[in-house]
């Protein structure tokens, strides 16, 4: 048991930390989240391993823990709902980086479930039905969450910035 759990952590730990960082947007929280989930998984590793799909189990735990029902506000993450950052009509050569930084900022303003759906869809490339299983909701609900999140991003981002980023043209 110890060996297989240790192997799992060693082999998959970095990927889990990446995933957790994208969920939380905070390195310390990501580390805390991964450690907490893995420590608890360790307690019943045999049963989880028997059921196969340990990684899916752990990723599900990461997501659910992060959007947990038991909210705990700490000094580090205690903040009122952030205003959407101001946007300006940038037309510089650094637009790609600026747009990505802006997207990253905007992700921090999304509710956790919406952010989780975007990470699962666009980073993990999971289909909606798997996201639904992971979140414990319906696929329709996943699509609603994604739609709302994307609508918020679209409404806030400056279109010329996006166009330049993607198509490499200057507006």
């Amino acid at each position: 048991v110890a060996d297989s759990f240790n192997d799992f952590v060693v082999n998959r730990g970095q990927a889990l930390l990446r995933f957790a960082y994208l969920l939380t947007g905070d390195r310390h929280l990501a580390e805390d989240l991964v450690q907490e989930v893995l420590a608890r998984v360790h307690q019943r590793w045999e049963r989880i391993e028997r059921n196969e799909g340990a990684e899916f189990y752990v990723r599900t735990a990461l997501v659910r823990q992060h959007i947990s029902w038991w909210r705990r506000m700490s000094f580090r993450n205690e903040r009122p709902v952030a205003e959407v950052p101001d946007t300006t009509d940038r037309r510089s050569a650094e637009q790609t980086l600026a747009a990505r930084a802006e997207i990253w900022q905007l992700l921090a303003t999304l509710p956790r479930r919406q952010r989780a759906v975007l990470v699962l869809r666009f980073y993990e490339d999971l289909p909606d039905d798997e996201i639904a299983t992971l979140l414990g909701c319906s696929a329709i609900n996943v699509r609603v969450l994604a739609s709302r999140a994307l609508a918020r991003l679209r409404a806030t981002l400056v279109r010329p910035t996006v166009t330049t980023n993607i198509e490499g043209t200057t507006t």
Partner: protein
Amino acid sequence: MSEIDLLLRETLQDQAEEAPGANGLLTRVQARSRRLRRRRAGLAGAGIAAAVLVASGTPAAVHLFAGSTPRGADTGGPANATASAGPSKTFASEPAPPEDRESIPPDPSYAPFPVRLGPPSYSLPGFPLVPATNTVAGLAPPVALMDGQPRLYHPPAGEGQPTIEVRFRAQKPAFDARDVAPGGEQVLVRGIDATMLVGSGGAANRYLYWLDPSGAWILVSASGVDGPTLVKYADSLRPGNIPMTAPFTFQTLPRGLELDQVGPSDMVFRTPDAPPGGSYIGRFVVMLNTDVSGEPATWPLRVDGRPASIIQQDGGRSLQVLLSEGRHLVIQVPANILISDEDLKQIAAGTTVADGVVGARG
């Protein structure tokens, strides 16, 4: 795939490379697992839980500066900068293998607490220190909140604006080595030797603490404030009283629960056997949220004519009530607090959100 989809995908791939490294992860997980096992064993009985409270070191009375006395005392809740080392959070939403789900106990468990409703009996303490105004540019006015005991908090006035929190601690503040830069600067605050630490990894956090002659440690945590300015702020603290304003008022509450935490958008009540502060675990929690579980249009219940639903979770259940677009009243009840759905709805119906309260994301 749309432009925004592509941009989002690229952004996530880029940012994933900024994630913390996995060096030492296995060692930390193993240590945490051992602590978790010990904690579970240690919390097997309510009597042992009470011992935890005693062992945390609670002074009978703490006098601050000249004669002021804070209500309650620090019982060693998690320090702001020690999330990685602090008590583990609950794992209420942890998925379990299908055959195992029902066997997962609430963690930790407290004694069953049957609820009878009654009028609220708590009082709101104030914070016994007052900072001077205008010592920190852009700092919002302070509010008195509570986390087991009163704390002073300057919320951010806007994105990127400074924040400061002041709280008392019964013991010298301890920090996770990974959260602060090595070493520390010795400074003087009101003529007393104090230590200032800086958050690691370029974090804009600073922590300033000193042992007050009264015997209490005072910890000032700040974000977006430089060192000299933080000392100036700490120097300006004087005895006084900042009254606490709660985000909710209630017509009725479970009798016997004690007010434990007051935040900008949440109030937490604990059972007598739960240690004060630092956690939502095993607590009766009332909060205003901006995000929600499910679709309000489909919620089957009504509370005061508003859509509502009760969600069963591992470890308890929660009632959420739609107040207006983007504002949801949520009441979390752990499994050990035995309350009927009707009583829960009655509490929600008698809850009023104070003016100006901004909901938080769960």
